[in-house]
């Protein structure tokens, strides 16, 4: 086995090994953790392969800051909008045409009420006049 690995290693350093032969070398050093430089070398390569995407650390600091800043900005804008909204008259009408229409309707209604009031006043005047005439006759 020793001489076979030596031959494979020679081929390896000359860049002549196939993938399968390289697997044999790697498996050999995995099961025989030699304290030679070549042993260290193949252990280094095996260590590199242990790095996993699923275990990749962290959040990109720049992105995290940007997202925090965006969240704060959105929060401030929302707060300002809500505050401004609260300050407004809830019955205020923004559209001038609608406001004119509403005012017109209100005035018509008041006008109608005044007219009705005037009718009642006329009736009272008539009643008072009749009452005065009766008092004069008696």
């Amino acid at each position, binding site marked *: 086995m020793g001489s076979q690995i030596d031959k494979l290693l020679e081929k390896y350093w*000359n860049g002549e090994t196939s993938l399968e032969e390289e697997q044999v070398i790697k498996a050999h050093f995995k099961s025989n953790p030699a304290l030679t*430089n070549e042993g260290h070398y193949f252990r280094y*390569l095996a260590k*590199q392969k242990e*790095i996993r995407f699923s275990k*990749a*650390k962290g959040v990109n600091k720049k992105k995290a800051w940007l997202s925090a800043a965006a969240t704060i900005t959105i929060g401030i804008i929302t707060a300002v909008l809500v505050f401004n909204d609260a300050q407004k008259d809830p019955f205020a009408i923004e559209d001038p045409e609608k406001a004119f229409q509403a005012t017109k309707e209100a005035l018509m209604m008041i006008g109608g009420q005044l007219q009705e009031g005037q009718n009642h006043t006329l009736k009272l005047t008539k009643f008072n006049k009749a009452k005065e005439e009766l008092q004069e006759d008696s």
Partner: protein
Amino acid sequence: MSHNLYHKEILPASDGMYRYALSIVREPETAKDIVQDCLTKIWSIRKDLDKVEKVNAWAFRIVRNRCIEILRRNRYADLDEKVVNMRHSDPVEEQAITNDFMSLMRKVLKELPVKQQEVFHLREVEDMSYQDIAETCGLTESDVKVNIHRARKKVKEAMQKIDAYGIAN
């Protein structure tokens, strides 16, 4: 069918895609973002996955292109022409490297030209065939073989120096 391909071919390759991105950009957070972007991109075109001949090499190529894009945006260097300015601290590797040999190996590999680093990583860590590496990196198979041979030669020379003079930077 293509949905299955995504689960069968792409997701299991995500660890390798991450290691490859990490070997290029050298920052775990950036590498993670790159792989997440690539997975999202591949998911969005999953219906066409069955038209791709070599899904694994194709996915690695997408990662490579994204890495180059990020490196260029960050004005590191042109990956194809120059050696990327490698950072000295690398938290992921720091955890793994526990002795002087490992640190020296890391130093030797980082001093390799970028092309050699790339093909070396894909062959030695990801166990990719010459053909897949060629497809991923946009090289010919003979270019890949030459670059791997040169990288191994430099590693071997460094190990011979260790044997001759002991571990020294």
